[in-house]
């Protein structure tokens, strides 16, 4: 009987993360369309529901009732598994995210490594999707995407190491709590900018959205997918975006820690966390509206020849400072 209750509580806890996550993904798409609309000086979706608030659900319903198409020459098992893997991986990294003080599903002490590991697994969903659909567009798109994700993971790992050096723990809650005096945004500002840009590349967002460059590759690795397969990729991609923003928030913006002085710092931590994540998400969308797409060799040059040496230098620099001033935590 105790097993039953344990399993039930685990299920309920996971649901209480997954459900809000999916709703926020839905409204993120709406936010993107609205913000992009305003930046292009048009209205964006405003027909379905009040100010277009039901638009994402209409889109979801449309994708749900569409016909699922299996290409005849596709490797069908992997073809079906790929979007599922992609979606699953975008969900499981949320286990370790601290939304507030003690408000985390699994407070493991290698939390940040877990997040890195899961985000490095995200390549599999994409690469298997591209290969199994047996189409040149999808294959090229997936190869591009995988190469891009691997390249930027390296510098991202090094940036994370800098933050870990500063706080002396791999636990995400400990990282947030170590920013009580000052957010890492201020001492490590260049690293924040680099982390944000790497996050853009890691989630395949504009200006690094080469994997789905419409002009060249139709829509990249998801070319052959229709209906729910496509919807799962889409959900996974946007959940990854939110995940990346919350990693930015936890590592550099002090997670759930309050902002400002007396009247404002009474706001509960969860709301603060959400606000900061939304700010970063707005930046994601702003970048998409503002910048043209990179060329592929430029993307690789930026990743390997600029970010990698620079983040290496920062690791050495911060380690040097910590040793010199005896700041070992």
């Amino acid at each position, binding site marked *: 009987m105790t097993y039953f209750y344990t399993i039930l509580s685990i299920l309920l806890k996971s649901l209480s993360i997954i459900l809000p996550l999916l709703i926020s993904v839905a409204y993120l798409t709406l936010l993107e369309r609205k913000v992009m609309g305003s930046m292009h000086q048009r209205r964006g979706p405003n027909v379905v529901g009040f100010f277009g608030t039901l638009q994402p659900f209409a889109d979801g319903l449309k994708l749900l009732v569409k016909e699922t198409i299996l290409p005849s020459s596709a490797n069908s098992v*992997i073809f079906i598994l790929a979007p599922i893997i992609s979606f699953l991986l975008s969900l499981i990294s949320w286990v370790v995210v601290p939304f507030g003080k003690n408000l985390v599903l699994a407070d*493991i*002490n*290698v939390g940040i*490594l*877990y997040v*890195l*590991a899961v985000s*490095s*697994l995200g*390549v*599999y969903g994409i*690469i*298997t999707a591209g*290969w199994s659909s047996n189409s040149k567009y999808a*294959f090229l798109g997936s*190869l591009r995407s*995988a*190469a891009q994700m*691997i390249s930027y*993971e390296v510098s991202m*790992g090094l940036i994370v190491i800098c933050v870990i050096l500063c706080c002396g723990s*791999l636990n995400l809650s400990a990282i947030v709590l170590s920013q009580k005096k000052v957010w890492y945004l201020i001492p490590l500002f260049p690293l924040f900018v680099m982390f944000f840009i790497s996050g853009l590349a890691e989630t395949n967002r504009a200006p690094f959205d080469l994997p789905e460059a419409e002009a060249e590759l139709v829509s990249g690795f998801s070319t052959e997918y229709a209906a729910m397969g496509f919807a799962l990729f889409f959900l996974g991609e946007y959940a990854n975006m939110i995940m990346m923003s919350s990693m930015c928030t936890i590592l550099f913006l002090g997670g759930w820690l309050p902002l400002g002085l007396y009247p404002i710092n009474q706001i509960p931590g969860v709301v603060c966390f959400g606000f900061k994540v939304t700010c970063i998400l707005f930046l994601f969308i702003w970048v998409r509206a503002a910048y043209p797409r990179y060329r592929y060799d*430029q993307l690789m*040059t930026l990743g390997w020849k600029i970010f990698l040496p620079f983040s290496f230098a920062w690791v050495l620099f911060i380690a040097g400072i910590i040793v010199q001033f005896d700041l070992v935590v």
Partner: protein
Amino acid sequence: MILEFFLFNLFSFFMLACSLLVILAQNPIHSVLFLVLVFFNSCALLLLLKVEFLAMLFLIVYVGAIAVLFLFVIMMLNITEEAVYNSFSYLPIGFFLSTIFFFEVILVILKELDGFLLFSFISGVANNCYFNPIVCFCEKLIFASNIETLASVIYVYYFYYFLISGLILLVAMVGAITLTLYHKIDVKKQDIYKQHQKMFKTSIDWKTIH
């Protein structure tokens, strides 16, 4: 404890099954994907042994980087179905080699851990201490996280080996770079710095043609 024991056996079983499928699968891509599953199961085993840091590193390094590169290469090679040969002809040699390897591993275990691990496993007293005496020993002495324990071993007692392995990796990296490094002279490339430095005045000038 019973649950952990059960899970340990389950993951070991899946690991063996997947590693068999790696060599039995017809399609090389399937083989690599099964290899990834093997890595996953070994990661789960490491988690059960409470060495979560190593488990995460295993995921990041082997699954996230090395297996992806495998997949990359095999996908690019575009192997057709006829190229798949019968792998059973190598079975005797493989069996021979694996037997040698197995006995070597057993010898090492018996020598290093004094038969501790093997016999306790048989007698059924299989808790984490018996699986991994080092972890247990450290837990008794001092409460240190996984990483601190590892660091105190690597950077204090074995730092020579650590430096040497770093040098070996450096040499390998230099080798790999020199293998791929060649300059083609006749290829036109855009130098981004030069491109940014271009001015209207220096790019275009008037020439009078007589």
